[in-house]
């Protein structure tokens, strides 16, 4: 695909997108394939190299392959075929681990996660390597289904774009946590639809940016039915001349009464030269709803830094501890302890390198 087919940054939903970095990633010369270890978890393991399954290194479990119902989204429409995870309530809910390795240039892959009524699933995805990795993931949750998804972007260079579309059925629950802790640019572009009554969506993460990197999320949550709740908790940490942007919107349809929506967007500037953009949006057409939203950008508390130093902690370590605390409440949402520890370790490694 040509980068020219993407919308321009004059379009409101793309204003903070770093399309320059995306085209540069797509044009990256081949790099040596990086090795990446799977986490020590039971269940299926899929290794994709430039969007192609490495069968020898993979155990498929319940995962199959085929066409995925297409998206007409600017990013999503370029990925048509890919993996598919379909679970029903009798299937064991072992996590599915997926590692995406990019070796330069561009690669596209689609995915579909379909949980039948009362099914439970867990998916952990990791992006490493260099180049432009573009993913389209379509999620459908039946009544009472529960999906936990954790995605970490650890490419040292290049770009990762994720287009995510989800329909969350009656009393179903989707909890997704992202961590952007690599050197790549990124765009997490999502549309979640709470299509059943009492549906629950938690969709958030931490974007850590450094150097001249730009990462962003652009998420829309649509409450179509009553009694749903959604939480979008995002943290952005920006160092040096980097830019992190968080745009999160909640739409509540006219008859989606008793909706409980929470948006918490917070940015932390580690250097004055960095940028954090925040854009919380509410479009509410029902009258009996509870929607809380907060958006703040700040710097590390100088008083706390000196307090810690006065107790013997070097300044850079004090900065790392305070920054870790800033993103901790997002990563704590990851229910699987092994996954959470890995994500926290990635965040700490980022902090050690950036501070």
């Amino acid at each position, binding site marked *: 695909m040509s980068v020219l087919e993407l919308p321009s940054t004059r379009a409101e939903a793309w204003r903070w997108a770093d399309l320059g970095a995306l085209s540069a990633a797509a044009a990256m010369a081949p790099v040596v394939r990086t090795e990446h270890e799977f986490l020590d978890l039971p269940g299926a393991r899929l290794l994709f190299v430039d969007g192609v399954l490495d069968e020898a290194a993979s155990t498929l479990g319940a995962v199959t392959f085929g066409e995925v119902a297409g998206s007409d989204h600017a990013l999503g429409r370029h990925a048509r075929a890919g993996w598919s995870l379909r679970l029903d309530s009798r299937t064991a809910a072992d996590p599915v681990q997926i590692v995406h390795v990019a070796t330069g240039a561009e690669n596209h892959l689609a995915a579909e996660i379909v949980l039948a009524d009362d099914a439970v699933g867990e998916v952990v995805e990791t992006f490493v390597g260099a180049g432009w990795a573009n993913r389209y993931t379509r999620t459908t949750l039946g009544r009472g289904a529960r999906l936990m998804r954790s995605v970490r972007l650890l490419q040292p260079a290049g770009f990762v774009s994720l287009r995510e579309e989800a329909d969350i059925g009656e009393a179903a629950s989707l909890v997704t946590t992202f961590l952007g802790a690599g050197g790549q640019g990124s765009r997490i572009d999502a549309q979640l639809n709470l299509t059943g009554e009492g549906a629950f969506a938690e969709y958030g993460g931490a974007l850590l940016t450094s150097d001249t990197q730009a990462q962003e999320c652009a998420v829309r949550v649509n409450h179509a039915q009553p009694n749903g709740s959604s939480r979008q908790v995002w943290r952005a940490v920006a160092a040096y001349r980097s830019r992190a942007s968080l745009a999160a919107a909640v739409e509540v349809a006219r008859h989606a009464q008793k909706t409980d929506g929470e948006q918490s967007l917070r940015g932390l500037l580690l250097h004055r030269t960095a940028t954090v953009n925040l854009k919380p949006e509410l479009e509410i057409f029902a009258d009996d709803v509870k929607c809380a939203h907060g958006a703040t950008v700040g710097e590390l508390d100088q*008083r*706390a830094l*000196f307090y810690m*130093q*006065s*107790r*013997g902690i070097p300044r850079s370590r004090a900065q790392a501890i*305070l920054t870790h*605390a800033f993103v901790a*409440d997002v990563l704590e949402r990851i229910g699987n302890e092994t996954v959470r520890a890995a994500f926290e370790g990635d965040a700490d490694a980022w902090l050690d390198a950036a501070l």
Partner: protein
Amino acid sequence: MLKIENLHAEIDGKPILKGLSLTVNAGEIHAIMGPNGAGKSTLGYVLGGRPGYEVTEGSITFDGQDLLEMEPHERAAAGVFLGFQYPVEIPGVSNVQFLRESLNAQRGQRDEKPLSGAEFLKLARAEAARLEMDAEMLKRPVNVGFSGGEKKRNEMVQMGIISPKFAILDETDSGLDIDALRIVGDGINRIMRQPDKSVLLITHYQRLLDYVKPDVVHVLADGRITRTGGPELAQQLEREGYAEVAA
């Protein structure tokens, strides 16, 4: 142990300390009293190395080393402890993590081996118990939601765990109830009343000095030491006020 000579310091270009000299020997407890705004906390911050507090003249020697050449965390590892007038809240960082990081960072700088989680917890629990602080508070984020008195008591728990050579205690008595004052006073004596340690006790009131008997009392006014005497000076100040005694 500590020798301050002709110290001048300013904040945002505004002179606060104006030629302060002070010597504290090992084994001594000195009290510093003085009117609001005199520069007492400023002296504490300058000793701790707080950014923005610029020393324009004079010297501070601690155990023969030039304190002003050292980073704040190096001063801590060398044995300087600053008890804050307003202890800082740190959301998201537990007391246990904060203190263990602190102690192990200091130990690391002194080439001592770090304490394990279990060793540290044992030490912290024992110290909290001695200062009659509920051990549950060790798990809570540093000072977040602590009452004024609880924060001050927490400073003393920290001092007990770190066991510094030299402590500047900035109005540690303010905000403490009557029982807490006794407990904290006993704590200061237990932790710091030793031949190789010394204390600079900043206070406005005689009552702390009833528990922690100072060897020397100074009056700090308008950025310098204007009078020095024995414990009787504190009593005289309480009776007659600064205007009479130290003008």
